[in-house]
C-alpha cells in the first residue's frame, strides 16, 4: 500500500529532523543559541497546533494565544501556589487548553469565515485584561534548589531543547496521524465546502470541536513549557496580539495545511527575528521589527501559498496522468496506473491498484488498492471516496 509507504517516509523524516536538532544542540556551546533553538521548537509546536485547526479546516484562528497563555499560567501558578512540578503542570496545561478549546469552540463554531476569525481575536485579549486585573502582572517561577529536576530547572540549557523537541515530535506525530486519518479528511472536506461535507454525512460540528480541543491542548502544553523555559510570565508576553499572530505568520509563511510548513516557518523566521533582535535591537530600537515585517511581506509576495507548497511544486514532478481517456470531468482528474478492473485467476473479482483522486488541490485518495476476492467482505479506509470514484471509472467492455 502506497499510503503507508508515504506515512513511513514521513515518520523517518520526523526522526531525522529530531536527530539533526539533537546533534545541532549537542554541538552548540552558547546558552543563547540553545535558548533560540528551544524557542524555534516551541513556536513550531504552537504553529502546528494552529495548523491542526486552521490549516486543515480553514477556520482561521487569530487567537491561539489564549491556549498558549492559559498553559503558561497553569504551569507558573501551579509551581507557585501548589508546588506542582511542571512534569504534571504541562500536561495539566494541555488539559486546560483542551477544555478552553471546547468552551471557546462550542459557541464560536456557529460562525464562519471572517466572523470566526475576529471572534477568536477577542478571547486572548479579553483574558489578558482579566489576568492583569487579577494582579498577575508579572510572575516569575521560584527557584527550587532542593529538587531542580522535579521542577525542570536544569543548569544545562540542552535539557530544554530535548524537552521542546519531545513536544515537537509529539505534535508532528499527532499532525501526521490527523493528516492520514478520517479526521484530517473530514477537516479538509470542511475547508473545501462545509455544506457539501455535511450533506455527505460528515458530522462537521464534532470534527471541528475535536480539532479545536486537540489544537488547544497542544498549544497549552507548548505554552506551559515556554513558561518553564523563560521563567517569567506576563499577560502581554503570553496573551498578546503578537503571540496570536506568530503561529499564523509561521504557518502561512511555511505553508498552510502541511505537516512541515509550520516547522519550516519556525526554523526560518524565529532565528531571523531573534538574530535581528540581537544584532540590530541595541543599535536602533525598532529596526528589527521593521526588517522582520519587510522580510515576511517580501517572501509572501514571492510565494503567496507558503514556502513548503512552492518548494514541493518546484521539486516534484507532476504525477503521471494515467489513463487519460478515463477522465470524466476536467475538474476531477482520476488516475489508476494499473488496469482498472480485471478478473484474475486467483479468485479475485475486482482488483484496483494505486487509485488517486483529487478535487482541485485536495487529494482525497492517494495510492489505494482494493482487491475483492470471491466470497469475501472488505472494509477499507476512505471507502466512501472510493465508492464515489467508481462511477468515474471506465466501464468494462
Amino acid at each position: 500500500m502506497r499510503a503507508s509507504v508515504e506515512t513511513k517516509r514521513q515518520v523517518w523524516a520526523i526522526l531525522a529532523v529530531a536527530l539533526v536538532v539533537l546533534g545541532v544542540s549537542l554541538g552548540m556551546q552558547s546558552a543563547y543559541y540553545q535558548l533560540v533553538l528551544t524557542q524555534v521548537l516551541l513556536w513550531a509546536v504552537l504553529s502546528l497546533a494552529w495548523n491542526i485547526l486552521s490549516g486543515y479546516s480553514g477556520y482561521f484562528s487569530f487567537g491561539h494565544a489564549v491556549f498558549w497563555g492559559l498553559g503558561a499560567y497553569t504551569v507558573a501558578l501551579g509551581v507557585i501556589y501548589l508546588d506542582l512540578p511542571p512534569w504534571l503542570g504541562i500536561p495539566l496545561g494541555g488539559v486546560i487548553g483542551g477544555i478552553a478549546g471546547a468552551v471557546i469552540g462550542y459557541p464560536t463554531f456557529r460562525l464562519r469565515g471572517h466572523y470566526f476569525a475576529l471572534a477568536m481575536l477577542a478571547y486572548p485579549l479579553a483574558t489578558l485584561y482579566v489576568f492583569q486585573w487579577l494582579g498577575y502582572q508579572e510572575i516569575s517561577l521560584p527557584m527550587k534548589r532542593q529538587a531542580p529536576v522535579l521542577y525542570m530547572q536544569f543548569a544545562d540549557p540542552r535539557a530544554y531543547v530535548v524537552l521542546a523537541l519531545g513536544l515537537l515530535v509529539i505534535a508532528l506525530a499527532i499532525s501526521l496521524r490527523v493528516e492520514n486519518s478520517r479526521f484530517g479528511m473530514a477537516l479538509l472536506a470542511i475547508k473545501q465546502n462545509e455544506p457539501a461535507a455535511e450533506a455527505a454525512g460528515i458530522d462537521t460540528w464534532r470534527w471541528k470541536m475535536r480539532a479545536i480541543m486537540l489544537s488547544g491542548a497542544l498549544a497549552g502544553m507548548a505554552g506551559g513549557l515556554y513558561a518553564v523555559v523563560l521563567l517569567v510570565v506576563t499577560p502581554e508576553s503570553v496573551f498578546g496580539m503578537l503571540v496570536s499572530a506568530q503561529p499564523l505568520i509561521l504557518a502561512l509563511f511555511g505553508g498552510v495545511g502541511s505537516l512541515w510548513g509550520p516547522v519550516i516557518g519556525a526554523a526560518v523566521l524565529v532565528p531571523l527575528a531573534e538574530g535581528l533582535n540581537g544584532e540590530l535591537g541595541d543599535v536602533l530600537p525598532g529596526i528589527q521589527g521593521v526588517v522582520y515585517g519587510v522580510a515576511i511581506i517580501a517572501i509572501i509576495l514571492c510565494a503567496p501559498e507558503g514556502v513548503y507548497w512552492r518548494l514541493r511544486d518546484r521539486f516534484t514532478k507532476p504525477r503521471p496522468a494515467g489513463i487519460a481517456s478515463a477522465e470524466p470531468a476536467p475538474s476531477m482528474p482520476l488516475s489508476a496506473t494499473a488496469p482498472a478492473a480485471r478478473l484474475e485467476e486467483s479468485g479475485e473479482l475486482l482488483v484496483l491498484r494505486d487509485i488517486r483522486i483529487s478535487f482541485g488541490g485536495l487529494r482525497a485518495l492517494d495510492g489505494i488498492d482494493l482487491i475483492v476476492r470471491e466470497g469475501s467482505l472488505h472494509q477499507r479506509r476512505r471507502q466512501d471516496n472510493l465508492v464515489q470514484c467508481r462511477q468515474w471509472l471506465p466501464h468494462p467492455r
Partner: protein
Amino acid sequence: MELPPFLAEFLQALAAGVTVGGAYALMCIGLGIIFGSMRVINFAQGDFLMLGMYVAFYLTTGYGILSFLGPYGGPIVAAFLAGPVVFAAGWLVHRFIVSRVTGAGVAASEGAGAYGQIIVTLGLSLILQNGGLILFGSTPTAIRTPLSRSSWEIGPILLNQARVVSFLVAVALVVAVYLFLARTRAGKSLRAAADNSTAAIYMGIDVDRAHRIAWSLGVGITAVAGGLLAGSQSFQPYVGFDFVIVMYAGVVLGGLGSILGAFWGGLLIGVVQQMSTLVLPYQLQNTAIFVVFLLIIFLRPQGLFGQITERT
C-alpha cells in the same frame, strides 16, 4: 434641580461615551470602508490611526507649523491634515504592496489569496509600529491644548471641551463621507465594487482603482479620528493595538459592510466603554468591549444594519 448621585454618574458616563464615541465612529467607518469593499482584515488599521496621531502631533506641538492658527483651531486643522497625509501613504502602500494580494479575483474568495493578505497586513503593522518607535521614540506624548483641560458644565455633567469639539468634527466628517459614497461617481464605483466586484468589472468600473480609493480613504479617515483623539489622550507607537479591537467591535456591531452601521457601532462601543466603568474596575474596561463584541457576534452576527447574507 438636584439629581440623585447614581443618575448623575450615569449621565456623566453616557456623555463621556457619546463624545469619545464620535471619534470611534469615525475610525470604524474607516475600517468599514476597507473591509466592506475589499473583504480584507486589515491588522494595520490601528497603526495608521497611530500615524494620524503623530502627524497631528508634529503639525501642532512638535514643529509648531500650525501654531499661527491658535491653540483652538490648530489641533483640529492638524487632525484634518493628518487625513490627506495618511491617505497618500495608504495610496502608495496599496499600489505597491496590498494590491498584489487583493483585488477582484481574491476579494470574493477566502482561498490562497487570503493568506497573503493576512501576512501583508500583519507585516505592515510590524513595520509601522517599529518604524514609529524609531522615528517618534517610545515616550508617550499628547497634544496639550487649552481645550483638553477645560470643560463645559451642563447641570451636573462635565463635558471635556476637546472631546465635544472632536465629536462635532467627527460627525461632520461622517456626513461628508456618507455624501461622498452616496452621491459622487467615485463613491458609487466604490460601492459597486464592494457589492459585486465581478459585475462591477463588467459594468466598466476599474475595481482595482476603487479598492485603492477605499483603502486610502479608509486609512485616511481613521487617521483623522486618531488626530482628533490625540487631543484628549496620550499615545505611543504601540497605541494602535488598543484600537484594533474597538474598531472591529464597532464595525461588527454595526454590520460588516454597512457604513451607517459602522457609525452607530463605533458610537455604541464608546458608550459601552465609558459606561462599563460604572460597574467594572477600570482595568476591565476593554474586557467589557470584548464581551459586547462576542455577544453581538453570537446573537446577531449580521450586526445591527447588516444583511443576513453577509454572514459567511
